[in-house]
């Protein structure tokens, strides 16, 4: 083979077994733990793309021309998990501020659902992202990341009320630094997708 697998390639190329590619959005405000969660479960070192906030179309003649464009950009992290049977699950770290709306719509296209991260120190920072998720019609679960310096303890009841969650919306506590905890949060979402009755989009 001309291109034998070697450790010099970053391992970014897809495994030959990859058949079905699916994605879940990891959404939340700045500093809530999106990159940490993706990093804790991804098989590749998390990558990112720089995305323009306004999706203006630019002529592409050469790389330099594109790189020189000075526009406001935001970094979108993503990671990847290969599952048995040729399924590849992508996690897209998605900032949820209102000004990212156009980008949000593009990224959420085709997603299975969203895991919305809530920061225990500032719950209201997730209001925007919850609004965007609900508008897009994406099913979602909420993962509450508890930080040691949170001002006070919340009961599940209080959290649900503060976030105004539907009774059926899963709410789990998560430590994004812990792989098993992150997987549990993802599982809560996927189980919610399976249980939805009847599925809204078929």
């Amino acid at each position, binding site marked *: 083979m001309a291109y034998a697998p070697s450790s010099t390639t970053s391992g970014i190329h897809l495994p030959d077994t990859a058949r079905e590619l*699916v994605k879940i959005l990891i959404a939340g405000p700045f500093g809530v733990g999106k990159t940490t969660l993706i990093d804790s479960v991804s098989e590749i070192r998390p990558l990112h793309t720089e995305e323009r906030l306004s999706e203006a179309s630019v002529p592409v003649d050469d790389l330099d021309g594109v790189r020189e464009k000075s526009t406001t950009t935001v970094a979108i992290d993503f990671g990847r998990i290969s599952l048995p049977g040729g399924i590849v699950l992508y996690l897209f770290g998605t900032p949820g501020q209102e000004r990212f709306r156009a980008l949000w719509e593009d990224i959420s296209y085709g997603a299975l659902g969203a895991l919305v991260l809530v920061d225990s120190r500032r719950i209201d920072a997730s209001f925007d992202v919850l609004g965007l998720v609900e508008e897009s019609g994406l099913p979602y679960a909420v993962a509450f990341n508890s930080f040691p310096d949170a001002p006070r303890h919340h009961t599940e009841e209080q959290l649900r009320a503060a976030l105004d969650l539907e009774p059926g919306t899963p709410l789990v506590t998560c430590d994004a630094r812990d792989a098993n905890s992150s997987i549990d949060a993802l599982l809560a979402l996927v189980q919610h997708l399976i249980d939805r009755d009847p599925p809204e989009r078929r």
Partner: protein
Amino acid sequence: MTGRRGGRPLVPAYLSTGGVARPSRPQLERLTVLSGSGELAPAGLPAAQLALLDALRGGSLTVMEAAALLELPVSAVRVLAAGLVDRSLVLARAPIPPAERFDPDLLKRVADGLRALKHN
């Protein structure tokens, strides 16, 4: 559900797309799989297209991964890849067969796969 109890504003109904109305559906999705076709690149191919072809020599990449690798916006990679697909230099494959999207069996396999990842 009854009215909002929390401090979060209501999403006005006219803003809701219900998850279906996507006005500008992109041809190449972020997770569309790109592979080199193996055809020889003609002389005079723009540098950016050559760079993408080069990245595909090591194997297949999604649009998103190609963008990360080339340090280009996804919108630019979409344009580059579409040009290469037109020239039969690159093959593009949708992330999942359309019929399988939201298939309960697919979701169950995702859940099983995630469960298997735990405790190791």
